């Protein structure tokens, strides 16, 4: 597999098509991180796209001493935060999470799980949500995550552990409220 650095060098040398594999490689991270911040799927996709365009236009400024993911993660988060500020989206409410999940394809069981996770993740803090998002992205190692969020690998490990616990607590609360709603109805 061609490294990120080689692709960047090719792009800088004028081969625009070399940027395409970079987009394919990092689009999942960009989209899911943006989604954790802006909360709406369509907006997250727009933010991720703009982040790639911004990265392309500023590729010359990329200091090759750090990893591309680290540099690009900052572009995505900054883009998402300024988008959120512009749109004045303070929080993503449960109805929005429900609407997103209801559009998801799959079996009833899958939908229930998706709904449960979506509701729980939206109740977490932005920091916890982003940390879990980066952790559950298969392609990122703990070292990479630690470089991206500017924490030590050990702190990331502890942070993920705590965030996982909080996620489970939120899921438990969700399950509890669903049972309560069933009894009430």
């Amino acid at each position, binding site marked *: 597999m061609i490294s990120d650095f080689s692709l960047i060098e090719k792009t800088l040398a004028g081969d*625009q098509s070399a940027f395409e594999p970079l987009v394919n490689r990092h689009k999942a991270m960009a*989209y899911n991180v943006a989604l954790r911040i802006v909360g709406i799927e369509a907006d997250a996709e727009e933010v991720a796209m703009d982040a790639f365009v911004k990265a392309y236009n500023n590729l010359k400024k990329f200091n090759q001493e750090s990893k591309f993911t680290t540099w690009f993660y900052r572009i995505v988060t900054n883009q998402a935060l300024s988008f959120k500020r512009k749109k004045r989206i303070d929080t993503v409410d449960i109805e929005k999470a429900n609407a997103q999940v209801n559009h998801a394809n799959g079996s009833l069981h899958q939908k229930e799980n998706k709904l*449960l996770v979506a509701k729980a993740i939206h109740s977490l803090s932005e920091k916890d949500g982003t940390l879990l998002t980066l952790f559950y992205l298969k392609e990122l190692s703990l070292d990479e995550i630690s470089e991206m969020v500017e924490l030590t690998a050990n702190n990331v490990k502890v942070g993920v552990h705590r965030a996982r616990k909080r996620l489970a607590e939120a899921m438990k609360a969700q399950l509890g409220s669903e049972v309560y709603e069933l009894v009430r109805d």
Partner: protein
Amino acid sequence: MEKELIEKIIDNPSDREIEKFDQVIRPNMMKNVSASFTKNVMAKIQPATQKADNQIWWIVAGMIMTASIWLFGGFGNAAPIEITLPKVSLPSIEVGPLIKGFGFVNIMLILLLLDRYFQRRRKTA
């Protein structure tokens, strides 16, 4: 999802339980981008480079305009124009400096366009 597993994660999970929990969460948490995502990004990038290339045509147009102005009077000895208005007489106006001034502005415009063009080329390179 099993409530017992969630409760175990909250209390004191073993590595196996954490792994099981992660396996359930990962596919439910990660969302996929649309199929046309990469294509759309590349399409957004394309115009920026094309824009830089198109600027050369503006420079050519500017040069043609300047050349035509200079050809049709800029270099010749401009004859003074006498303008006489009813009841008000104005002094004669020298057109030569005006045309030369206009030519100078055009040259500055071309230099500006060239500067922008090379800046954009540097950015996109």
